[in-house]
């Protein structure tokens, strides 16, 4: 795996479900596979609980790329997959309205042993951030409030 080891300026937030992505991240760690240290992995119960405003707020606060790593259609929670996809699609619309490149937010199905796909996702996000740079900040509060009510 080719990895970019110097510390990138941008920050990547990874929301990783306990039944999927978080275990994939652990598996990568157990294999001692290096990846850039700008990735911060938060364990989540399901990916379906985050409204679009959460993502917009995160970009606003200083996150430059977000990867949602869940179990996809293999989620043990009925309806998680469809609901998460819907929320992410809603968020894309709101991101475009706010001049945020939608590619900053990725939804990826990562299983418990998906080490390579896990690393690929991080690499792809970092390559993108290298190309487009940090997320623009300074979103008017009104737009965040609007996003909250839209979600």
């Amino acid at each position, binding site marked *: 795996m080719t990895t970019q080891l110097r510390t990138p300026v941008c920050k990547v937030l990874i929301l990783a479900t306990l039944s999927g992505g978080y275990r994939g991240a652990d598996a990568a760690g157990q294999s001692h596979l290096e990846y850039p240290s700008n990735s911060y992995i938060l364990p989540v119960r399901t990916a379906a609980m*985050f409204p679009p405003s959460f993502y917009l707020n995160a970009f606003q606060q200083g996150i430059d790329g977000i990867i949602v790593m869940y179990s996809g259609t293999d989620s043990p929670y009925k309806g998680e997959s469809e609901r998460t996809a819907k929320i992410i699609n809603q968020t894309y619309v709101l991101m475009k309205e706010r001049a945020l490149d939608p590619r900053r937010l990725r939804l990826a199905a990562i299983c418990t042993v998906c080490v390579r796909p896990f690393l690929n996702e991080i690499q792809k996000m970092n390559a993108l951030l290298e190309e487009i740079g940090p997320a623009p900040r300074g979103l008017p509060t009104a737009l965040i409030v609007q996003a909250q009510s839209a979600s």
Partner: protein
Amino acid sequence: MPDPTAESQTAAAGKINASSPAGAPRIGVYVCECGGNIGETVRCEQVANALGKLANVTIARHYQFMCSDPGQKLITDDITEKGVNRVVVGACSLFLHEQTFRKTVERAGLNPYLYYHIGLREQDSWVHHECPADATAKAIRMMSAGIAKARLMQPLAPVHLDADQRVLVIGGGVAGLRAALSIARRGLPVTLIEKSHFLGGHVAQWEHLFPTDEDAAALLEGLIEEVIAESKITIYTGAEVVSTKGYVGNFDIRIRVQPRGVAKDFAAVDQAIAACPVQVPDEFNFGLTQRKAIYQPYVGCYPASPVIDREHCTRCNECLRVGQNGGIRLDEPPVEIDLKVGAVVVATGFRPYEPFAGEMGYGEFPEVITLPQLERLLATNDRLEWNARPVRRLAMIHCVGSRQIEGMHAPQPDGKVNDYCSRVCCTATLSAANRIHTRFPNVTIYDVYQDIRTYGRGHEDYYVRACKNGVTFLRHLPEEIPEVIRSEKGAEYPLLVKVKDRLTWGEEIELPVDLVVLSVGIMPSPISDLVDMLKIAPGNDRFLLEVHPKLRPVETAVAGVVLAGTAQGPMTVQESCAAAEAAATKVAVLLSRGKVELEPYVAQVDPERCQGVGECVCVCPQEGAIHLETRIENGKMLRRAVVTAANCNGCGVCVSVCPSRAIDVQGWRLDGFEAMVEAITAETPALEGVA
């Protein structure tokens, strides 16, 4: 022994009631060096020093092994002596030691949910060896995020419910029988329902079971005898679930039992069967033979009394004429029975893959059959003949209906191909090949395969034996599917199998044969109604999903519903029985005390914020988990969402749609995540001095 820890901040003096979260958070932060696993990359002392400067951090330490007894004692001492009321540990994976530290804080009198775990080893030191400074800075941010969450944590209590101890086992195959017996022997009453009118499932159709070559009929007979002798087991055949309500410990389940149509003591069985004019393909023999509309699938079946197949019975009354009065009851209606059970074991089994018409000649040439059909052919005949001709050459083709490739294979009605390996068919095929060789040594056997996956203990012996028995193996690439065609008129053998054989470097070989056997894969039984009723989730391969394949291998995300056997994926009989035992243990542990304890991770509504919009109710996938209630407050009629904790699995879908942020999942609150993001992105003074 000198204190090996480094205190970065002096703890506040005096004791505070540790069990009470009241007042400002007093957070104890512990950075584990994990021997050198973390400490050789992350400068743990520097991390602890930095974190000690953060608000609400009462004490920040680093230590060689936090999971060791002395390490845990540091935490308990800080709770009791320094008034720490929230604990954050950065160590190895949370899957390894989160529970360890929860118990540690609980021992010291603190609520175990006032603990937060950060995986510094797997997600920092082990993946950033090359950059210790970056790893150290990341550790500070990760731990800061944990501290930010800890500030907002509230004590939680598990949900306790009274539980009915009866267990419903759905499926009377080997897994269901095994599970029912095992549960009953642990003292819990069991209701076992089987959709067909006979117990035994597919095992009743096999002659021998690998890897022990055990007599399948004897094994099944013994198991059924034990089940029917067990007074705690109530059996309903011809029964299926029609509705479910409730939650773990308290499921209300209605089953519908189809009548057999034949009295238990009916004596003129043979005469009635002989009199029936109806002929339909016998599913027990996979359509190789015909049966009547009144039938018994096989000698020694249980229950022994025959059944009337209402779908095909023409009501000609011929059977009534030979039967004793009242022995046959064609108009008996189905009966519905309400059950109250504490847990459900889903053991609904599998069905063999049915090839499409024309797939490798199946349905097109009568000389193409499936492996299950071959098994019945061998079980019911002393000679190996097909279409009244002796079988001299036989080709067995693996992976039919398994490991399919999108675009190359026809999809199932749901649009998906079966891209999974059915696991058991390689050994099953080799087992059949060896038995044919033993019984009919003059038959030439070709085995056409992609890969031989004899994965289990003793399975490889079948391959070795097949090689010694002279079975000829031909190997093809997945995308070079063998072709089955009709031989030219007058040819000695009716079929030709064309294979591009990788074992002879791509030679195109034609095998003239009498019979082609398709080693078909396994698919889950069609149980979509049951899946919807129980709110359990099938995977991408349509088999039912467990919470985690290794750590919670038989539990579903719905508390109280567990899986046993091939409903969960392809398994051997041996594996099905092991899964059934696991399921039985799980429900016995759950229900044995007449009470169940559930994790507190369920949705919680803030009634002050809730506006009664009801979006949460609309999107909730769990029936009965959330509803709207109307109440009168200060003369105003208000609608508020109310969660039934026992029905909620904490999926959090409701959280994402609430316009007033009035609902959250306890322990996984949205504001906690927001605080963590803020900590990760903050220009924190904690990072000063870190390169």
